[in-house]
C-alpha cells in the first residue's frame, strides 16, 4: 500500500510540474500585456512602461520568472496579483469554499437523482420506464448548463421572484440565504452530471445483472430489491466513483460560465477575470490549485477502489 501511495505521489508531482510549466508558458505566449491593462488607454512613456514592467518583474526572462515562481510556490507563496496586489493564496482561500460548495451540491444532487434513475433503467431495461428515463437523461445531457441556468433565472427569479439570481452570500454569513443563491446554479450544474451518472449506473447495472452470482442470488429466492441494492449496486458503483472523482475535480475548474452568469465569486469567476486582465500569477495559482485537487482526488479514488472491491485489494 505504501508503495502504491509513493508511486501516486511521484506521479502527482510530475503532473503538477508539467501543469505549472505549460500554464506559465501558455499564458506568457498569449498576446496582450498586463502593463497595457494597468496603464489603460492613457498617455505613457517607454520609461513608465519599463518601470511598471520592472515593478511586476516582467522584465526578467521567462525561465527566470518561472523558476522564481516555482521556488516561491514550493514555500507556499503563490505571489500577488499584478492588477490589485491581492495575495494569490488568500484569493484562492476565499474562492475555494464557494466553488467547492457548488461542486459538492451539484454532485450530491446528481448522484441522488442518477442512482435511482440508472437502477430503474437497468431493472426495467427496454420497458417504458427505461425509455422515458433515457429520453429525460438525453434531454438533460443535450442542454448546456448555462441555457438551463438562464431558464431557471427567468422562471424562479424574474417571473416568480422566489430566488435571487446574484448577490452571493457566503455560507458563513447565513445558511438559508446561501442556499437560496446556490440552488439554481448547483441544479444547473447537476443536471448534466446526473445525466452522465445515470447512464453510467444503468450500463454498469445491466452488465452486473448478467453476472452468475446475481443469477445465483435470484435462484436462492432473494428479493429483487435486495439483489439490486446489496449485490448489484455496489460492484456497479466502481465506475460511478471514478467519474464522481473526475467530475468533482473538473467542476472545480469548470464552473466558469455558471459562476460568471450568477456572479458567484468562486474559482471560475476569478479565473476568467484574471485571464481577461492578463493577471498571470492569479491564472497560474488557480490552475495549479485545480490541477492539484484534480490529481489528488483521482489518486484517492484509485485508492478507494481497494476498499470497495476486495478483488482489487487482493490483486
Amino acid at each position, binding site marked *: 500500500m505504501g508503495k502504491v501511495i509513493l508511486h501516486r505521489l511521484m506521479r502527482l508531482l510530475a503532473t503538477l510540474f508539467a501543469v505549472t510549466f505549460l500554464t506559465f508558458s501558455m499564458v506568457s505566449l498569449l498576446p496582450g500585456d498586463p502593463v*497595457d491593462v494597468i496603464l489603460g488607454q492613457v498617455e505613457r512613456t517607454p520609461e513608465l512602461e519599463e518601470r511598471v514592467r520592472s515593478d511586476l518583474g516582467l522584465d526578467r526572462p521567462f525561465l527566470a520568472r518561472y523558476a522564481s515562481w516555482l521556488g516561491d510556490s514550493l514555500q507556499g507563496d503563490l505571489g500577488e496579483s499584478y492588477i490589485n496586489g491581492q495575495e494569490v493564496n488568500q484569493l484562492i482561500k*476565499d474562492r475555494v469554499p464557494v466553488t467547492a460548495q457548488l461542486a459538492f451540491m451539484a454532485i450530491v444532487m446528481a448522484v441522488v437523482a442518477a442512482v435511482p434513475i440508472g437502477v430503474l433503467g437497468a431493472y426495467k431495461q427496454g420497458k417504458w420506464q427505461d425509455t422515458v428515463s433515457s429520453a429525460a437523461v438525453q434531454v438533460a445531457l443535450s442542454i448546456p448548463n448555462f441555457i438551463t441556468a438562464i431558464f431557471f433565472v427567468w422562471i424562479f427569479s*424574474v417571473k416568480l421572484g422566489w430566488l435571487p439570481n446574484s448577490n452571493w452570500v457566503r455560507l458563513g454569513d447565513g445558511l438559508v440565504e446561501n442556499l437560496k443563491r446556490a440552488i439554481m446554479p448547483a441544479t444547473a450544474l447537476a443536471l448534466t452530471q446526473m445525466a452522465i451518472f445515470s447512464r453510467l449506473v444503468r450500463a454498469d447495472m445491466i452488465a452486473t445483472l448478467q453476472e452468475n452470482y446475481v443469477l445465483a442470488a435470484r435462484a436462492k429466492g432473494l428479493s429483487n430489491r435486495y439483489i439490486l441494492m446489496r449485490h448489484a449496486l455496489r460492484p456497479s458503483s466502481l465506475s460511478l466513483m471514478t467519474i464522481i472523482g473526475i467530475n468533482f475535480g473538473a467542476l472545480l475548474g469548470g464552473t466558469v460560465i455558471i459562476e460568471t452568469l450568477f456572479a458567484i465569486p468562486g474559482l471560475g469567476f476569478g479565473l476568467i477575470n484574471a485571464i481577461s486582465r492578463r493577471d498571470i500569477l492569479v491564472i497560474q495559482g488557480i490552475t495549479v490549485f485545480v490541477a492539484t485537487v484534480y490529481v489528488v482526488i483521482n489518486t484517492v479514488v484509485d485508492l478507494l477502489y481497494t476498499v470497495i472491491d476486495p478483488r482489487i485489494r487482493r490483486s
Partner: protein
Amino acid sequence: MRQRQLFKLLALLLVFALGAAACGGDDDDSSDGDDTTAGDDTGSDDDSSDGDDTTDEGDDPAEETDDDPAEEGDVAEGDVDTEVTEEDPAIERLYGGDISVGLEAEALSLRPWDDTCSAPCYNILTTLFDKLIEQDATGAYQGWLAESIAPNEDFSVWTLVLRDGVTFHDGSPLTAQTIADMFLVQLTGAAGGSNALAAGITDVTATGDLDVTYTLSSPSSAFPAFLSRAPLGMVFEPGSAAADPAAFGDAPIGTGPFAIDKRDIDNETVVVRNDNYWASDPDGNQLPFVDSITFRPIPDEGNRLDALLSGTVDAFETSRQNTVRDARANSDGLTLYEHQGSVASGGFFNTLVPPFDDVRVRQGLNQLNDQDTVIEALGGTGISLPGSQFFSPDSPWFSEAVAAAYPQFDFNAGKALLQEYIDDPGRSDAKTTGDKVDVELSCPPDPTLTAAMQVLEQVWSASELVNVTLTSFDQATHIGMGLSDATNAHCWRFSDDNDPSITFNAGFAPPTEEIAAAAGLPGVVSVVNWANWFNADAFAAVNAATQTDDFAERKALYEKVGLLMAAEAPVWYSGYTATMIATEDSVFGLNSWHMPSGDLGAGHPNAEGRWAEVWVNAG
C-alpha cells in the same frame, strides 16, 4: 403504483412551476427607507458646507467663457434623453435604507492613484473619495473639495484653495500638505504616473494651510479637467496609502459621503454612511441620505437586468445599447436614467501602413460605412445617434460643420474612391493594379461588436473592391495591438465627456520620432495617437486650445481639428454610446445631485452615478 404517483407528482410540480411563472408578476420588493425625513435627522451637526460656500467664480475658467455651453449642443432628437433635471420637490427626501447596485464589472482595486477606472469603478470610488473639481450640468468645471482654482496669466501655474473643515474617514483633516503628499503617491502609481505626465504636472506644493500650487511643464487652460477624474483628482489619505498600498485597496480612506465597510472582490463592496460628511443638499439636508450601498459585479448583461427586474438589486448600470433597449421594454416599476455622451464608437485605421496611408482608401471605406445598419446590429436603433466627430450632439463642443463634412454613407462614391486607388499604378500597397484592397479588421469578441463588424465586412466586401478579414482578440490584447500597430483597422471607442484636451493633446501628437523630427517637434511623441495620424495644423490647433480659456475660441479650434479629420478620415464612426443607470422607482435623486454652489451636477455621465444625494422613498 408508487412509481405512477411519483410521476404524477413530478408532472404536477412542473405544471405548477410553469403556470406560476407564466402568471407571476415581477417582484416589487424594492429598497425601503425608514420613516426619518431629511429634515428630522441630519446625522451630524457639521454645517460647514451649506451651499453658499462656492467656487471663486471670477477665477473659474469655465465661468469666463463667452458662450453658455449648455445652450450649444441641445440638438439631439430621437436618441436617449440626457437632460439633467431637478427632482420633483414634492417627493419627500428620506434618510435611511440600503441600496444594492449591479455593476458590469468589478473595480480593479480601490486605489485611485494606481488603477485605470471606468464606469463601474467610478460608481464605487465616488462614494469613497471626493474629487477636487467636478463637472456641472453644463459641462463646466466647478470646485468640489476645492473652493476655488485659478491660473496665472499663461495657465502654467494653478493655485487651488481647499474647502475648510473637511476630514477623512479616519478623522484626519484635509490640508494643503495632504494634497502635496498625495501627489508623491500618485507619481508611484501606474495610472497616476501616466496622468501626471499627460497633465504636465512638475510640482505640487502646499503654499498655505489650504492653498496648493500646481506647476505645469507647459501652459494648459484645461488643467482643472485633470482634477475632476481619477487618478489625479480623487483625494485619498496619503499616509496610509504610502505605508501599505495593497492594504489600502481593501480599506481605502477618503473624504467621500460613504466609508468602506466590506470589500469582497468579485462579490460585493459595501459602503456605509459617513456621518461626518461635509456636504449638504441645497435644502440644507446633510448628505448622504441612504445608510449603505452594496455594489455587486454582475458581468452578464442579461442577468444584471434580470437582477433588477427580480428585485435582487435595486439599480444597475450598462453601456450596452441592446441592454438599454431591453430595459426600456421592461421598464414598469423602474426609473431609467439614460445618457448619450461623447463616447463615439467606430474604429481607426493605422494610417502609417498601406493602403491606409492613402486618404482615398480611408475616405472610400468611410463612405461605405452604413452607419444605420451598424447601429442596428449594435442594438442601438432609436438609442444611439450616428457619429460624425468626437462630440455627441448633446455636447457643447459638437460642431454642425464637422457633422456636415463627415463622409456620409454613399456606396457608389465610396466605390469610386477605392477604384481610383486600385487603378493607380503607384498605389501604396504595391499590389498589382486592379487587385482588391486588403483590410484586417480587429475587434474584441463581444457579440454585438462582432455583429457590427460583420455588417462592415459585408458592405465593404459588397463593393467587390475589398478583401476583409475579421480578427478577434480579448480587450487587453486588443489595446496592446492598437499600441503596437499590429493590425491595420481596429474597432474602438473615442473621447469622453471630459474637456477635449484630455483626449486630443496626446491623441494628435506625432506618433513616431521620425514624424516628430520632421515636424520640428523632436521628442514630442505619443503612443496613444491610435490612428498614427499626424497633421501639423490639427496639432497646432489642439495646442492652441489649451492656451486660452475662451470657450468660443477653443470650440473653433476643435472644430478645425474635426474638419481636418473629416477630410482625411483616419477614423470611422458608428454611433455614440448610450449608457443607462436603471433603478427601482422608489430610488430618487440620481439625476439631480448638486454642486456646492447649488448648481446641478453632471448627472450620470457614461453610467457613472453619484450616490450621495440619492434617497429611497417607497411611499
